[in-house]
């Protein structure tokens, strides 16, 4: 496709800038504005087939393709990491079809497309977080018939969801939902935050950045505008709480980030490391800098131990 520095609309292979044709972008852009106007409401849109498979981020990709421009700097993460294969693949896609600059640093990015995580570093005004969403309707598990769930959303009949959560409490003594934990947006629409761990739910509330959600296969787009209330469902006697870990990250010693468990050998060896690779690398670099006088060499970007 197009060579570096080429900012023509045509990518040289007959495809448009950012892959989508202008009519499709216009349709998605109109959808995005409606989504921001009605926080948490799932707007149906004429989702297109993309050159990546459904379930692999086509909703997020269509949203990103409709908003991205030559001045943007794109970051793509999957499981919090920039170097997971699908994140690499999606980043490459945008490098090829839009020639846009990319980055692994959260603070530098104007658009961050994500699957399953919200970065640990706080987001700022002017940044846009694009979520890849497999199943946009939090009520889908309660009733798979879209006709029915649409009515529940229309009349804010969310009792069934509360009952489902309460059944967990009756059975397990706690709400047994650990990711894709439903949240109420602007005190009106029940929303799936996508399969992020519930650890990330509080980050959605009153965030200065724009949060856009794209579900390609289900053909829905929704949004959380900046400075918007996002309340995770809970009960007075069982308030919402997030995951915590006993230890800290084995690489950067963070005690406040979401940790992945890594199997280190076949004898039960385990270690915990940050899922957000940019956050972890930055902390390791900072630490190396402060202890440089002590003769410790900064770890390389492969984060080897």
């Amino acid at each position, binding site marked *: 496709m197009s060579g570096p520095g080429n900012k023509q609309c045509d990518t040289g292979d007959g495809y448009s800038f950012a892959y989508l044709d202008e009519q499709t972008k216009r349709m998605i*852009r109109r959808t995005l*504005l*409606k989504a921001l106007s*009605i926080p948490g409401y799932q707007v149906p849109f004429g989702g297109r087939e993309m050159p990546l498979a459904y379930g692999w981020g086509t909703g997020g990709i269509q949203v990103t393709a409709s908003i991205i421009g030559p001045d943007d700097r794109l970051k793509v993460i999957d499981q919090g990491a920039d170097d997971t294969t699908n994140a690499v693949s999606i980043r490459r896609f945008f490098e090829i079809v839009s020639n846009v600059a990319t980055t692994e640093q959260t603070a530098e990015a104007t658009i961050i497309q994500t699957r399953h995580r919200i970065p640990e570093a706080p987001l700022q005004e002017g940044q846009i977080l694009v979520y890849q969403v497999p199943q946009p309707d939090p009520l889908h598990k309660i009733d798979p018939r879209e006709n029915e769930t649409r009515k529940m959303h229309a009349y804010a009949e969310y009792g069934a969801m509360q009952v489902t959560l309460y059944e967990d409490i009756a059975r397990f003594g706690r709400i047994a939902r650990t990711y894709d934990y439903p949240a109420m947006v*602007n005190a009106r629409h029940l929303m799936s935050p996508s399969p992020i761990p519930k650890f990330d739910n509080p980050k959605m509330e009153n965030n200065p950045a*724009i949060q856009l959600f794209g579900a390609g296969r289900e053909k829905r787009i929704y949004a959380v505008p*900046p400075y918007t209330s996002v309340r995770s469902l809970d009960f007075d006697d069982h308030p919402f709480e997030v995951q915590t870990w006993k230890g800290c990250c084995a690489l950067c010693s963070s005690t406040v980030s979401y940790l992945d468990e890594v199997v280190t050998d076949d004898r039960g060896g385990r270690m915990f490391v940050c899922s957000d690779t940019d956050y972890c690398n930055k902390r390791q670099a900072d630490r190396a800098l402060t202890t440089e006088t002590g003769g410790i060499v900064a770890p390389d970007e492969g984060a080897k131990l």
Partner: protein
Amino acid sequence: MKRDLAAPELRPAFADPVFDTQAVFRTLMSAVAYPGRIFPLDRSVSAPHPLDVAATALCLTLADFETPIWLDGRASSDEARSYLRFHCEAPQTTDKKSARFALIADPSSMPHLMDFHPGDVEFPDRSTTLIVQVPSLTEGPTASWFGPGINQVIKPGIAGLPDWFWPEWNLCSEIYPMGVDVFFISGDMLVGLPRAVRVEV
């Protein structure tokens, strides 16, 4: 084929449609995401009389054959009509309820909000977006805006609106999530007012 249809006085649209509409869209999205803030457009276009630059840019960015557009008496000059027909290919309608966009150049005599389409109970997104050209975005009476996208409160001074506008705006919250969304336009500046915003005058 298009060239033959174009009258000689027809003004050009964006010089670079792909990147100009992308840049304008980002400004529009910011305006909806951060209601009440004034956003200047960083792309220019030669607007047909009596449309403002920002209103013209908005139509070029969002309107097409899928979005019927309604124009008020003042906006519907021959020049504006043929410009929109040629560059956006948007059907022009006289039925306010079927319009996806409504262009209002004379806000003092604008139709009531509920004359436009508020969407359906199950599909509140199928509503009209109002594009209202006003004399000023700062020199009108100040009102306090609250809601999604607003950090605490913001106090724009939109000028030229009829007296009933704000009371009626708040009445519309009764039917939320149905409702209309508004862009206020002045020259090349714009302010977004999505339906979730509450206003105290």
